[in-house]
């Protein structure tokens, strides 16, 4: 995307905002934009900022462009508070939304095109670009749902789900403790620990290793969450059955990856340990395990997602009356979709935080690995 086309895009966005002043905002009889002081000011400000962004070259246009996007988004959201517009928005309104979208896309393009030399600036950009992209997606979701008046039973707006999230924090916290702290974490620790231990034993006795690796590969490809009903039958409705499913689901990926990792130590290093007269325990802790760490972390990351899925699916087969999976299925049955989305958000946040923590631990312990040294 070259400079002149970017400029043209910003000019089009400015024109779109200004056209919103003239066209009808709603299919029903609603006052036009000039009759509403706050949205009017915001719209004009956005149009001016877009024009300014079009005038500036290179990275300079990003700041006014983003400010304009903020003003435009605020204007459309302020308009949606009018019940005459929400649900029956018309050409003028959608033109403004399209203009905001266009300008935001142009900003993302400009940001992505910046090639900075300093490392910290690059990191900041790598964070800012996807965040901005995500914010635009959420904005469009909100505006489209409210503008078209999509029934909340089908898809609630993000703001409604967020309000529900904030209003039911105690319930969410209980569900979080039940599903995540009890089911997922306990099962994860046991499953990954057992997988690692068996891998160490299998690495020591080659016969066992040659038998276990193909079987482990086979089992980790099976739909193991299907054992959930059996575990519920064996361990009861409470968290132990969920933890058992998580143990089973996380065991095989860890076994397979740890076996591969323990075999990753090179011959030269092994010979070196032998020339030091190291016994097996020393070789294990000082050579095999550190060399296997990248593989083990790979399994830990795969398992972080698998564990959460396993626990939630197991809850569909029976729970005491709490837990993320239980809440999702009952609230979906009651058509309280905003609560469902609040639980989804909870699960998403928990999943990402879990994954992020594992990734951070990986950075801290495998900083020596070539994939981090670049």
């Amino acid at each position, binding site marked *: 995307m070259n400079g002149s086309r970017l400029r043209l895009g910003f000019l089009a966005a400015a024109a779109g905002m200004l056209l919103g002043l003239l066209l009808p905002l709603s299919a029903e009889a609603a006052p036009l934009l000039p009759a509403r002081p706050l949205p009017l000011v915001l719209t004009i400000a956005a149009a001016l900022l877009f024009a300014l962004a079009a005038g500036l070259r290179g990275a300079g246009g990003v700041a006014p462009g983003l400010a304009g996007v903020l003003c435009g988004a605020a204007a459309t959201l302020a308009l949606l508070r009018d019940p005459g517009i929400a649900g029956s928005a018309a050409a003028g309104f959608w033109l403004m939304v399209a203009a905001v979208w266009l300008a935001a896309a142009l900003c993302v393009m400009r940001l992505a095109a910046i090639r900075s030399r300093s490392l910290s600036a690059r990191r900041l950009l790598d964070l800012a670009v996807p965040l901005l992209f995500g914010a635009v997606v959420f904005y469009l979701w909100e505006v489209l749902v409210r503008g078209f008046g999509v029934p909340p039973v089908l898809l609630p707006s993000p703001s409604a789900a967020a309000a529900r999230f904030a209003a039911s924090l105690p319930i969410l916290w209980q569900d979080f403790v039940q599903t995540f702290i009890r089911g997922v974490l306990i099962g994860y620790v046991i499953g990954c620990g057992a997988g690692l231990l068996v891998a160490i034993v299998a690495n020591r006795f080659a016969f066992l290793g040659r038998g276990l690796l193909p079987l482990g590969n086979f089992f980790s490809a099976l739909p193991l969450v299907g054992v959930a*009903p*059996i575990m519920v039958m064996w361990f009861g409705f409470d968290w132990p059955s969920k933890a058992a499913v998580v143990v089973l689901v996380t065991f095989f990926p860890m076994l397979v990856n740890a076996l591969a990792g323990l075999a990753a130590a090179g011959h030269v290093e092994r010979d070196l340990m032998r020339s030091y007269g190291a016994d097996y325990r020393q070789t294990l802790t000082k050579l095999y395990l550190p060399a296997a760490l990248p593989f083990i972390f790979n399994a830990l990351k795969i398992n972080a997602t698998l564990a959460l899925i396993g626990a939630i699916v197991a809850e569909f087969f029976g729970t005491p009356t709490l837990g993320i999976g239980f809440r999702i299925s009952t609230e979906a049955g009651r058509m309280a979709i905003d609560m469902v989305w609040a639980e*989804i958000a909870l699960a998403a946040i928990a999943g990402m935080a879990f994954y992020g923590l594992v990734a951070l631990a990986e950075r801290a312990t495998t900083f020596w690995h070539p994939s981090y040294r670049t």
Partner: protein
Amino acid sequence: MTNSAMAVAAPRRRALHGHPLLDRLVPIATIVLALIAIWYVAAVLMNMALVRDAFEREETPYTASELIAGTMEAERPLLPAPHQVIAAFVDSVFGYPLNAPRSLVYHSAVTLSATLLGFVLGALLGIALALMIVHSRVLEKSLLPWIICSQMVPILALAPIFIVVLGALGLQGLLPKSIISAYLSFFPVTIGMVKGFTSPDPMQLDLMRTWSATPAQVLTKLRWPAAVPYLFAGLKVAITISLIGAIVAELPTGGEAGIGARLLAGSYYGQTVQIWSALLAAAILASALIGLVGLAERVVGRQMGTRP
């Protein structure tokens, strides 16, 4: 993974010498036999109390061998013995007409069709996303992090909601399940193909430029062939995860068809043997599907002239 198998096998002691195939199969067979033995012992131990109660309720005297024989034949055991599972499996596969609701073939076919449709949709979506990401720096920077994030969210757990919502929209049957499968299976394909499309080294790309190749030519003549191994690696993960998605998506449809519905019905009515035979069907389905992808990989590899 076969490479790592070799690596594990490397430091072995000189215990067994023989045909290489024998060398590979003996350890596997040993462990499988050990697992089956453990299973039998566990079945005896876990069902013992159940059977003893039954005997004592009828107040018939019993011997230890009768007790053990009883644990193998209980109707609703805590853990059915392997031969019970296999008998139930064979019965439900061959004992009923193919379209009877008690036939496991029928349920497997329902799940299989959702799995395959979802797999095809997911693979196409995955390849399309990878193409877009490789050709646009903006998308690589803005979309790729979200694709990765999307998989940290326990999507599978949301499958039932999806089904409920799509059902409210009037979409029922195969498509909602396939959408879940597709959502799950596009990810490994996308990640693999992004890696694959960018795997040609700069020298080769430079060579294409000296020939003034168009982007389409670079894609079809260099990037695509280079990405094929990555494609199959991604497809193998995608097809297993697609099967899992289809099974979990069947859970909320309770009384209807599919392996997942079979699992749920079995857990409602305490029919453990039925659950286990459904699990066996899922396992066979999973290995057959992976085998098919592996076969396709070998055929395509031979056509492209790569050495196995």
